[in-house]
């Protein structure tokens, strides 16, 4: 009885969400049409904002790639039977999972040199690359925890069955355990992707030219309150259109996997 009563508001909620998804772009469009001078200003600055946003996407994807590779390795190392291997990795994960992203970005920006010497050649070490590393560190700590949790969630009988079939420990991990982990760790991995993507805006505080930085530049150049407002709404809309689909997909996958495991 209650399930029938519940399904009704959910449907209208779904519709509402879809309207909400278009609300911010619609607001920007309507406002810039209502005040054409504002619209012209916005169109003029859009390429600059877009170049900033491209930087966000680049930082987010590189940090996530780096974080996933390192995190997966660390997650496996956390379950190693050798203490000298396990303890430093556990300490790394605990320290950087609890550290604010901003602090890590500051750390990498100010500690790393501005250029590195490779075989006598001076290579520049730009700030955006430091921000990538600053965000990859927490990402790797989160991914390590997810990997560890996913490996532990696989029933031990699977390990034993693999052993019975003559697989070594590393072979069992590679061919039997990890493929199953992939499915389980996808939704939390996407949560991290969304949070790292939003974290890229912190790079503006160390002077990386990304979307928030670009919007601040634009609003100081134009010096109009309504332009400032709409510039920040554009920033919000940009992040929203990037992160909201990830969040929706995550929720759908979570429901899907939950339904699967219940049987």
């Amino acid at each position, binding site marked *: 009885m*209650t399930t029938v009563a519940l399904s009704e508001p959910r449907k209208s909620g779904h519709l509402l969400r879809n309207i909400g998804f278009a609300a911010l772009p619609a607001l920007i469009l309507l406002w810039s049409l209502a005040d054409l001078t504002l619209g012209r200003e916005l169109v003029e600055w859009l390429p600059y904002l877009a170049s900033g946003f491209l930087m966000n996407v680049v930082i987010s994807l590189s940090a996530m790639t780096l974080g996933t590779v390192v995190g997966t390795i660390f997650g496996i190392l956390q379950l190693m039977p050798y203490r000298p291997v396990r303890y430093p990795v556990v300490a790394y994960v605990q320290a950087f999972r609890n550290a604010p992203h901003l602090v890590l970005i500051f750390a990498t920006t100010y500690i790393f040199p501005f250029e590195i010497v490779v075989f006598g050649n001076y290579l520049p070490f730009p700030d955006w690359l430091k921000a990538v590393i600053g965000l990859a560190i927490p990402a790797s700590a989160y991914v390590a925890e997810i990997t560890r949790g996913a490996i532990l969630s696989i029933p031990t009988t699977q390990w034993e069955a693999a052993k019975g079939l003559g697989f070594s420990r590393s072979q069992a991990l590679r061919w039997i355990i990890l493929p199953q982990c992939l499915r389980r760790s996808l939704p939390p991995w996407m949560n991290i992707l969304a949070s790292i993507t939003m974290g890229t*805006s912190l790079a503006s505080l160390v002077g990386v030219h990304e979307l928030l930085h670009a919007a601040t530049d634009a609003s100081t150049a134009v010096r109009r309150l309504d332009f400032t407002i709409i510039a920040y709404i554009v*920033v*919000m809309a940009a992040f929203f259109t990037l992160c909201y689909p990830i969040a929706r997909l995550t929720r759908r996958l979570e429901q899907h996997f939950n339904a699967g495991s219940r049987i």
Partner: protein
Amino acid sequence: MWNNGITGLFVELTNRLGLNYEFLATGYEAEIWRDGFITTLYLIALLIPVSLIAGLLFAACLTSGRLWLSAPVRAFVEITRNTPTLVQLMFSFLVLNSFVSNLVGGAQNNPLTPFFWVVAMVGLHIAALHAEAIRAGIEAVPASTVEAARGIGFSKLQILRYVEIPLAFRASLPAIVNNLINLVKLTTVGNAIAVSEITYASIMVWTQRDNVVSLMIVILLFFSLINLVVARVGLWVERKLAVPGYGL
């Protein structure tokens, strides 16, 4: 500076390890830095109740079943969760703050400080996350329990107060503790609008002395410690509230 001897010893010992804490011996910088720690702790102590109360209100709106209450809160929650807090903070500080200034006739009359905006924005941001956790908890309360409460004559508000929230709170406690750890980390965004919390104070020190590594070690330890305490207290509350046999 409680004891010059101990501080001096500490500075000397860490100096041998290649770390530079000499600023602790000077009154001015040490004071800025200590104030930074206290401001961060103060922010956290203030933000935890603010976010919990606002989160409960949002959750009540979300589950009220009235569209005019739930739709705006739902929109707010989705926007908050999917846009960076820093952008929200800059937006509120630059735009809303200047509206308030215009309203009261000039920035000099504006009672709202950067500190207020950090508390408001981070508090509402975490409240949105709490609301989602509590809502999920409320929806997980067995329908038969709610019906039984309705059967003995509880009103909708009474069911929420005496049945749904106590049970939902237990179910959503792990998620809430997670959000609180996020809250502790989010206090650092205050740095962007010159609230002198720990990172801002540290920048003051390391631009003078170029001792980033030394300060970073302390900051990372500081946040690890706070989050450890938050997680431990959360676990303790979870155990205290556990209903035997209920599975929560």
